[in-house]
């Protein structure tokens, strides 16, 4: 597989929950194009929704409109989704796991999303560079043949 055998799509989103559908649809489009297997694609969709909704809800506290970037890269070994936002620093890798549920007692809403995202992905990377959060969600599955075909 050559290094050129990747496909990247960038989506600019505003910090509103209704915007998240655009990222979801872009990932769906790539899923169809590359005939991605259903289960890892769904798991990636869930993780994307968790991380992007977290950015929308918590990255900016000034009530103003902000823009951030979602970059999806399909490569022979899977899909990487990068989320870049210039909001408050948030490292999902050090986010505490939600407390285990107590039988007969409902857990308080919230805190679950990042935990689920990490469990559904093969790798999560985070760095804070140039005042931006750069979070990468990695899902690994074999796409070699499909990526090769789309290059022809």
């Amino acid at each position, binding site marked *: 597989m050559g290094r050129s055998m990747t496909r990247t799509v960038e989506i600019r989103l505003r910090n509103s929950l209704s915007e998240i559908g655009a990222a979801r649809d872009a990932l769906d489009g790539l899923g169809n194009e590359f005939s991605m297997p259903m289960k890892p694609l769904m798991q990636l969709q869930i993780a994307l929704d968790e991380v992007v909704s977290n950015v929308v809800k918590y990255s900016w506290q000034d009530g103003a409109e902000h823009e951030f970037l979602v970059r999806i890269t399909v490569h022979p070994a899977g899909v990487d989704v990068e989320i870049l936002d210039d909001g408050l620093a948030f490292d999902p890798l050090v986010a505490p796991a939600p407390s285990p549920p107590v039988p007969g007692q409902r*857990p308080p809403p919230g805190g679950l*999303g990042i935990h689920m995202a990490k469990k559904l992905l093969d790798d999560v990377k985070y760095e804070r560079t140039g005042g931006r959060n750069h979070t990468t969600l990695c899902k690994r599955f074999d796409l070699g043949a499909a990526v090769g075909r789309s290059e022809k």
Partner: protein
Amino acid sequence: MNTSALTIGQTRAGDVCVVTLSGRIDSTNANEMMEQLTRLISSGEKSILVDFGAVLYLTSAAFRALLVATDEAERSAAKFVLCSVAGHVRELFEMGGLLEVFTIHNSRDEALKQLG
């Protein structure tokens, strides 16, 4: 995956209001589901069954909405139960540690028997 929309259907089986969800429940539409469920509870429904048989996947936004609806139901002394939580949808409930938090029946028939 071609269906991005969440469809919320509603039927009645005796005294039970059956809500059928299909598609995916994520942060873009979980509020819509929550509003519909809490509206049913506040309108006086005393038995609500939510069927997950046609749900593709759900995110933590859906779990939050279900937790809110469960609390509302409890306050209104209404029964709020789920059914047909299977396959990878069940795995997601498990991952969230939520299988024991909700009342979940294997099938719609079993749930209706219990509620009836």
